């Protein structure tokens, strides 16, 4: 089991990475907060320590991805989330407003669920397809097709807003 000092050190090192990965995949900062907390609690409660930094990073990203997919549970097992999807763009919470998402971030969050995480890992974390596949435990072919479709969709979203001159 990890000590509080070890957790603090890991939060300092990887906290932003975990939060950003959660934030881009869900609809608002409240959900991102819940997921972020769940990821660290899972680590806190794990009985064995993760041996290397690389494995720890992969574990954190994969667990965040799993927690994001478990969001459906909030419908049935936690408080009911009634925030309609499109409201995200109209009524941001105070936290969201403070963060003032940039345009590209908003566009990534408008992508269908299964593309967001992969596009984020590619554009923000700079991972290659093979690395993303290993990190998330999915097939490389799946990552390749999702990344291609995700980038294509991102381009369409940006073009539909009549924003030009982006290099993809």
């Amino acid at each position, binding site marked *: *089991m990890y*000590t*509080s000092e070890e*957790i*603090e050190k890991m*939060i300092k090192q990887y*906290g*932003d990475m975990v*939060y*950003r990965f959660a*934030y*881009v995949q869900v609809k608002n900062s*409240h959900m991102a*907060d819940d997921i*972020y*907390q769940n990821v*660290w*609690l899972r680590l*806190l*409660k794990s009985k064995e320590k993760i041996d290397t930094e690389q494995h720890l990073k992969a574990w954190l990203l994969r*667990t965040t991805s*799993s927690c994001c*997919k*478990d969001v*459906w549970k909030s*419908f*049935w*097992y936690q*408080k*009911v*989330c*009634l*925030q*309609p*999807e*499109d*409201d995200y763009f109209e009524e941001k919470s105070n*936290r969201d407003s403070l*963060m*003032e*998402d*940039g*345009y*590209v*971030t908003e566009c*990534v969050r408008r992508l*269908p*669920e*299964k593309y967001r995480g992969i596009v984020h890992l590619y*554009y*923000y974390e700079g991972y290659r397809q093979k690395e993303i596949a290993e990190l*998330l*435990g*999915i097939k490389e072919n*799946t990552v390749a*097709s*999702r990344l291609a479709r995700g980038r294509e969709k991102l381009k369409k979203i940006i073009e539909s807003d009549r924003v030009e001159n*982006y*290099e*993809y």
Partner: protein
Amino acid sequence: MNIREEYQLEMKKVKPSKALNDKILEQAVLEQERPEKKKKRNPVFSLGALAAAVVLVVMIGSNFNNIKSFASSFWGKLTLTTGNKHMELDIEPIQIDKDEFISQEGTELVLGSDSNYWNTYSSLEECEKKTGMKLWDSDQLSCSEVGVVLDKYDRGIIYYDCKYKGDTYKLSGMFATKPGVHPGYGIENEYYKTYAYGNGKKAYFIITNNEHNKADQVVYFTANNVLYQLGVDASETGTKRAEELIDIIAADE
């Protein structure tokens, strides 16, 4: 402009709050201070204690949703519990080929205690085609992305957003994938109104508070052997919209 550079610059502003990190560290300190339980319990005692706890919780009518959900399944009834009222649900299992679902492109195993398999489809039609589920078909509603989750207890969840009259509504449905599995569910609040639809079915309207502490309402209804949960505003318009959506989604009932 390079999209990667711009995205990276924007993302640097996204950070967890200090209060959130403090909360986690507080929990870490508590966990560290908690004495480790090493005493081995007698398995017979543990089982007896578990059974007694379940009976006790059912008898005192606990409001804890998970326990109620379990209780509904435990007694072998397809029930929805709201407050102290129990309604039997007229739904049958939807038999999905789980092995086929797992082998589909894009199906992922979600890490966690329930071993959930998860996939998403671009439309209801694609979902029907890939899972064999029978859903609804209407020109009045548009539905973007459909998520399906199957767990190790032979239960399924389907969730999607619907666009109707310019607004987006979230729907989440629960179903069984094998005979003998009962997706019962309970919520502490009592329903304040019902709506009759289809062939003698009823939808139940419950007032609740959302994450912003504002009153909202949740509506429970069944359609195509799925127990649905739909969130709408706690207003006359919200209620009317819910009724219209139920009529569309459960048109074949």
